[in-house]
């Protein structure tokens, strides 16, 4: 209806093929990854539904594997007009670092660093957006999660090290 036309890319086939191959691998290894020692017959057992699910995945990926194996030079690898998303990758790395940093630095310091660096990466350098916003957001997180909801956060290991 209102959707703009999607351009085909071999990346799409590649992702489908990878998922399909992973599904096939899991399907083959299912007897070792699912405890089937119970007395139930197969139709009542724990394996029937995962086999159907993985089977659907394998079947749905077959056309892509076929297309990838055939040389279709007219279909490009590039995904439309997109280039490599460096900024997204960097933000994702920062998000992983944020998660790892919470036990070490605590919620407040980790949030402040994540927000400050992320906003800088995205080009926000003004004092209001670059400094005040991370401070406000950190305060909000502290208020909602620690004070209102009483969520337990581990004592920062760095703090413990410094105290020792």
């Amino acid at each position, binding site marked *: 209806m209102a959707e703009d036309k999607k351009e085909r890319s071999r990346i799409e086939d590649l992702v489908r093929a990878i998922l399909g191959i992973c599904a096939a691998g899991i399907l083959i290894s299912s007897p070792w990854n699912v405890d089937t020692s*119970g007395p139930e017959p197969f*139709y009542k057992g724990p394996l*029937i539904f995962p086999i159907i699910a993985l089977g*659907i995945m394998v079947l749905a990926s077959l056309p892509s594997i076929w297309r990838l194996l055939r040389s279709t030079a007219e279909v490009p690898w590039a995904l439309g007009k997109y280039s490599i998303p460096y900024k997204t990758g960097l933000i994702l790395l920062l998000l992983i670092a944020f*998660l790892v940093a919470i036990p070490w630095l605590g919620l407040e310091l980790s949030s402040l660093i994540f927000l400050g660096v992320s906003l800088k990466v*995205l080009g926000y350098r003004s004092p209001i957006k670059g400094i005040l916003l991370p401070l406000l957001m950190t305060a909000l997180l502290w208020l909602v999660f620690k004070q209102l909801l009483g*969520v337990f956060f581990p004592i920062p290991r760095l703090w413990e090290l410094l105290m020792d």
Partner: protein
Amino acid sequence: MIEHFISGIEAAVTVTNLVALSFGALLGIIVGIIPGIGPMVGMVVLLPFTFALPPAVALSLLLGVFCGGYYGGAVPAILLRTPGVPSSIFTSFDGFPLTQRGEAQLALSAALLGSFAGGVISVVILTFLAPALAHIAANFGPPEYFSAGLFAVTLVVMAYRKELGPGLLLLGLGFWLSTVGIDGPTLATRYCFGSMALRNGLHIVPVCLGLYGIGQTLILVEQQKILQTEHMSLTRRTLDFSKLLEALRYWRTLIRSGVIGTFVGLIPGPGSILASFMSYEAAKRFSKKPEEFGQGNPEGCLASEAGNNAVPAGAMIPLLTLGIPGDALSAVLLGVFIINGVYPGPLLLVKEPVLINTLYVSMFLINVVAFLMLAIWLRPFAMVVRIPSNLLAVNIMIISMVGIYAVNTRFFDAAVALVMGVLGYIFLKLRWPMVTLVMGIILGPILENRLRESLSLGDGNPLIFLSRPISLGLVLASLAVVVIPLLMERAKKKVNLH
């Protein structure tokens, strides 16, 4: 019946419930106004907070976001020709030309009135239709439930048949992800790969929050597009209420669009875009001046908004009576029901009449609150579009991550959300129908249990699905949903060749 309804009203007008639905509607309007975010992101970000709330309040909060999102979507569609939610694209066809003519207030009045009427009409239909459907569903056994689930899943996959391969792949992935952990009936471990943390399975909150809260916001990080808002003119801070009376002239269109939207919402798959499109087209067909549509006819805004705003209540009908969600948003609602130990189905209306009536009243109140909020704070809400989406994205990410951790105070859940976020980002980038993945994750355990129960009834014979009339009908309907569109497309190709 009446006493349950009165109890429902009493529960709905408690301070906690009113605060929850108002906050939900407020957040819904905001995420609806900002293009690219939408009610799904708003709902999943709120998911961790619903654990601390009673079921009715949690559902009112999420329903507020669900309905509020459609209200908000019309504002940028009319003022900037940029729909906040995809279904508001049809509102922009007439809304933006009206804005260009200096009649933005008329367009917004028509859209808001349409949203309100669509929402209210659909709640009334829901109130009367749900018990009738539940009465039919009361005769359902496991084979009928499985076939109904199969029918719903087929409808959703076929609604995205241009992406049939990816849709099926994601459905299978969703089904498989739902099996990870300890299997309830047999207590067997499945696909834990030696991890103790995986024995509890993949919780719906990190999975959905990862797919939408992180995945969608990673997409937003890349958006450098600044909306051109300098021509965004509103003659006053609030809605011009005199224009509402002008829009009320189209009351027939309001009723028709509300009914169309409800019944489209009832069918799993098509969703709000089709509801909006069908309502718009119907209004054009019945209009005395169809040539004015697309040139700035307020009736177009009204029809489109009434259609898409009727979808949430319409989608609640199969959800409450059969436990079958029609789209990703109602799939998340189903997840919230299950988390709270409430299992939707025909017996829900008998077992939890007060909860059901509370939801009906809450949905009505959400429409009133969202309408009033937008009517009174029209200009401040319109200004929300000026917030850069990538700035918002970073903040949504951090709230999502901390929220996921807060549910079980486990960093493992946050790690699951990150992995799901990366997958969600890839799938969104490839424009695959992620709704099938969410449907698979949430419907997976229900379908699996019904399948095993049905096969047990039939001593392992799958023909049990064809031996009972309702089940047979649903299986045949599923087949028809697959075969008919394919045959039609083939016939079309043949005609084009000749």
